[in-house]
Structures are given as C-alpha cells and as structure tokens.
C-alpha cells in the first residue's frame, strides 16, 4: 500500500508537467460542471421565486358561497396535518375602485392577518416607504399605484365598492415586489378592514399556506394532506397549489434540469476518457519500472494499486482545482455580468452539497478511469521488459 502510494507519487512528480496538465483538464471539467449546475439551479430558483415569491404555495377556497366562516379551525387542522407548512393566513380579497382627481383604477383589496401573512408575503421586506398598517382603515399600496396617483405616506384615499359606496382609507406605506401586477393593483390591509368595508361577518375568502422554502416542490403532497385533514369539516372547501397552476413552467424547468444533467454527464465522460487514455500511456511510459519491480517480486495487486493511487491523487487535486475554478468562474460571472441596476443577470445558486457531489463524482470517476491502466499494469509480464532491454 504505502510503497504503491509512494511509487505513484514519484511517477506523478517525475512527469510534473504532464501531471499538472491532467489536473487542469479534470479541473476544467469539474468547474464547467459546477458552473453549469449552479447557473441552472440559480435560474430555476429565480424563475420559481418570481412565480411563487408573492403567491401562496397552497390555498383553500370555498366552492359554495365563496366565504369561509370558521377559518381558524381550518388553519389549525391543516397546520396539524402537515409540518411542511411554515405559515398560514386567512385572506379576504375583493375588488374596489380607487378614485382621485377624476381618475380611477380598479384595485384588488386584500385583507390579511398581517402578522401571519408576513410569513408568506414578507411585507416588511418589500416595504419601500412608510410603515405597515397598524390600525384598521390603514392600507399599503404598490409603488406603481403611488406614482400613478401621486400619493405619499399619510394620504387619505377614496375607495369605491362595487355597490357604489365610498370608503376612506389612510395610506400607511408603499411596497415594491419588483413585479408589475401587485405593484399596480394590490391594496394590502387587515382582515377586519376589508370585512368592515364590505359589511361582512368574521369571514375569509381564502386561506393561504406557505410551504418550507426547500420543499416548495412538494406543494402537491402538502395540498393532498390538507385536503384530507379539512374534508371532515366541510365538503365545499377546495385546496389548490401553485404547481397545478404553473404546469408549463414546471415542464420547462424539468427539461432544463435534464439538459443540465446531460451536459454534466457528457463533460464527466469526456474527462474520464481523457484520464483513462493518459493513464494508459503512463503505464507504457513506466513499463520498464513496473517490469523491474515485478522481477524483484512486487505483487500484481500492488503494481495495479500504483495506478489506482495515481487516479485517486489526480482526481483529488483535479476536484480541488475544479471547485476553485468553478467558484472563481461563478464569482466572476455574478460580479461582471450585471443588469443595469447592479444585480447579476442570473443569480447563481451556490449549493455546497452540489459542489461536494460534483467533486466526489470526479474523484470516483478518476479512480474508475484508472482501472484500465491498473489492469494493464497487473498483467504486465516482467520478462517482456527484461528481455527487450
């Protein structure tokens, strides 16, 4: 073992340039793998984020009259049923018109349990100006609505209900979700405010749930659990989730993932083939030494171990070089490929587990690649070397 390892390192050192070129080759392969993987993952994360960043992952609505009376009970049984749910809030949605100086526009007024809904919409994160509504009658508007109606914090606005009543509200602040639709037409307030405007009892029009960040793709399973849990309470409640509403996006993402994996697999295959052929040449270069060692009595197993060690060493250094190169490439990409506003064109997703996996695959691949030269070394007959001086 130790001797095989030492011979392996001496062989690698004796042809240092060749060794460094192989390591560079493996490193470039691994770095491409890491870069492409991080790019695709980042792309997908940001796509998914724009899609569901300001929407609930799972929601419960009423099929009958559109109102859920005992929403607290529904929330409780749903949260009990699935621990992947991290936030839940009742919401009462309705349409109103905002009118100012003869101009008007329709708004979607959304009454939440603001504290609970923070876990879904992260209002305070996206608050551009002002403060969260503290009392009933206070609302948040989007930055586009603010600009359209030249509003500022503390202004009073007139909202007109579909049955032509006018209600006054105070603007406590403005949010910016970086997406046009909510910025233009959402009006966020407390649940009691909307109930009061529409003269309703303590009801909600929907219950919205947020699933753990890393498990958003399990929303369908969560929805199924929620559905089962609340079935006993009422048979008019229906459960929806983001995936069924975004099937096209999902199949797009899946296609992207598959092509990303294909690229990575082919990069790895070419790396393995490269190493295998280089190591096979090394056996030829070192056949004299192997022959002498065998004449002196080294076992066939130990003589093949030399080349497995070479593969392992090259793999480890190649993987390290690859991780460094890959991270460097990613860093350069996120630093230099920027949008006009300074954010990266594509936010890379650096996943340590993915990087570790790529590195591990590279090391294993290199050892596998060295099986062929190891075999060659094992079957080499010393007499062929001794005889042909």
């Amino acid at each position, binding site marked *: 073992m130790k001797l095989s390892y030492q011979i392996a390192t001496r*062989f690698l050192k004796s042809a240092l340039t060749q060794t460094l070129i192989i390591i560079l080759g493996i490193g470039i392969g691994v770095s491409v793998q890491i870069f492409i993987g991080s790019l695709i993952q980042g792309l997908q994360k940001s796509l998914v984020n724009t899609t569901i960043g300001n929407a609930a992952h799972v929601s419960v609505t009423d099929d009958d009259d559109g109102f859920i009376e005992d929403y607290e009970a529904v929330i409780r049984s749903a949260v009990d049923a699935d621990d992947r749910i991290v936030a839940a809030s009742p919401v009462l949605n309705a349409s109103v018109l905002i009118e100012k100086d003869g101009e008007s526009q329709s708004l979607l007024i959304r009454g939440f349990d603001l504290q609970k809904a923070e876990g879904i919409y992260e209002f305070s994160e996206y608050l551009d100006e002002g403060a969260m509504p503290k009392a009933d009658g206070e609302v948040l508007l989007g930055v586009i609505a603010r600009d359209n109606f030249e509003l500022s914090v503390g202004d009073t606005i007139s909202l007109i209900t579909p049955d032509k009543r006018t209600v006054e509200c105070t603007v406590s602040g403005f949010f910016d979700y970086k997406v046009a639709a909510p910025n233009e037409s959402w009006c966020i307030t407390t649940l009691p405010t909307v109930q009061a405007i529409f003269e309703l009892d303590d009801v909600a029009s929907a219950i919205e749930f947020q699933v753990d960040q890393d498990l958003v793709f399990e929303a369908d399973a969560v929805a199924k659990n929620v559905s089962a849990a609340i079935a006993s309470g009422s048979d008019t409640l229906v459960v929806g989730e983001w995936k069924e509403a975004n099937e096209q996006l999902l199949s797009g993402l899946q296609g992207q993932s598959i092509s990303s994996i294909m690229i990575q697999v082919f990069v790895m295959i070419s790396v393995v083939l490269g190493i295998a052929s280089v190591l096979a040449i090394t056996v030829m270069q070192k056949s*004299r030494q192997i022959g002498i*060692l065998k*004449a*002196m*009595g080294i076992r*066939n197993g130990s003589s093949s171990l030399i080349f497995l060690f070479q593969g392992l060493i090259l793999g480890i250094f190649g993987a390290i070089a690859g991780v460094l190169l890959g991270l460097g490439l990613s860093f350069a990409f996120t630093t230099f490929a920027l949008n006009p506003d300074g954010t990266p064109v594509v936010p890379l997703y650096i996943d340590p587990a993915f990087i570790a996996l790529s590195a591990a695959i590279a090391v294993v691949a290199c050892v596998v690649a060295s099986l062929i030269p190891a075999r060659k070394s094992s079957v080499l007959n010393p*007499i062929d070397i*001794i005889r042909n001086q």
Partner: protein
Amino acid sequence: MSNILELKNINKIYGTTVKTQVLYDINLGFKEGSFNSIIGQSGSGKSTLMNIMGTLDTPTSGDVVVDGVITSGMRASQLASYRNRSIGFVFQFHYLLPEFTALENVLMPYRIGHKTVPKETTDRAKELMKLVGLEKVMNNNATQMSGGQQQRTAIARALLNQPKMILADEPTGNLDSLSTGTIYDLLRDINERFGTTFIIITHDRKIAEKADRIIEITDGRINMDLMKNN
C-alpha cells in the same frame, strides 16, 4: 550439500510461427553456497537461461526446481514472493528506477516484502553502498550516476535482502578491470561469509576462472561444465 536450484531437460523455443530454439535439453544443478560462472558467446542463450533460472521466464519444456518444488506449479504471487525473498538480480542492463535515489533503489527489494523499513535495514543499505564505493552519491537520483555507478548500485540492491541466491548477468560489464576485481572480491567475500549462492554470467575469462565452477554455453547447449575441486 543439497541443490538450491535444478534445471531438468530445459528447452526454450522463441516464436510461434517462426520458431527459434535457443536452449536444448539443459540439465544443471547448483549447490547451495557455490560460486558459479556461465560463459559463452553473444547470442548463445546465457540471458535466456538466467531468466528461466530466476523464474522470470518459463521454459518451453522441462522443469525448474527450487527448494525441491517445481516452479511451474506455483502461483504468480508465490513466485513473486519467492523471488523477493530468495533471489537477488543484477540484470545485464542495470535497471534502476530513475524516479528514486540510489539508496531508495537499494532499499526497494526490502520495501516490496515489508511494510516498514527498520533503521537496521537502512543502515545495512548504507553499509552496502559503502562496500560498492558509492557512499558519496547514494542520495543521487539514479539518473545522475554513471553507468558503472548504476551497476554497482544494482549489485548493492541484489545483496540487500541477503537472498540465498544471486543471479547476475554481466554485473561488471561497465567497469574497469580494477573495479571489476574489487567487486568480484566483494562477491566472493559475501559468498564465503553468508553462504550465498552466486550464478554469474560473464564475458571475462579471468573472472570466470575465479569461480568454483565454469559452465560454457555454446549455441544453447552445455559445451563445458568445469568443477574446481577445492
């Protein structure tokens, strides 16, 4: 004394389509502790015979018997460890490992058979380097030595494991006659002190005559087998 090595009806034919017979019906026995020389013209089959005696090559027919065991029945790993323990080789074309220093080359046969190298072994390797007159260059890489120095290193390497038998093919081919004489005196001394069996191929008749026995090979046959009685 018993025979440490026996060759029985050895024939060697090279090639499958064009067949060249190199050795014809060789029968030889070597006594433990004897000092033997093999002479013969270039191409007569000396190296071929030595490779067969060292279990590196296999005869086309006939048996090689070591310690009473026929080698053709032994597994590759058994042969490898037999070679490692019992034979010291000095090849005609010296064959050091260029990636290692002279001293590391000398230690190599020991390292092949053992996991760790105790200090006594390293000391013995250094002592052997001194005996062959190389204590000054023992940390040189094998490639940074002259042909004669490499040859002397190979001799030290063959002696390291204190094998029962040393097979040497022109071990002093690159040396001047003074060094050749010193080396042979050294080998003779080891032969007498440790009872190591020596089988040495040489061109040099003067050297051959110092051996207890001279075997002459002519065209693959034993032409003369002269035993000195002392």
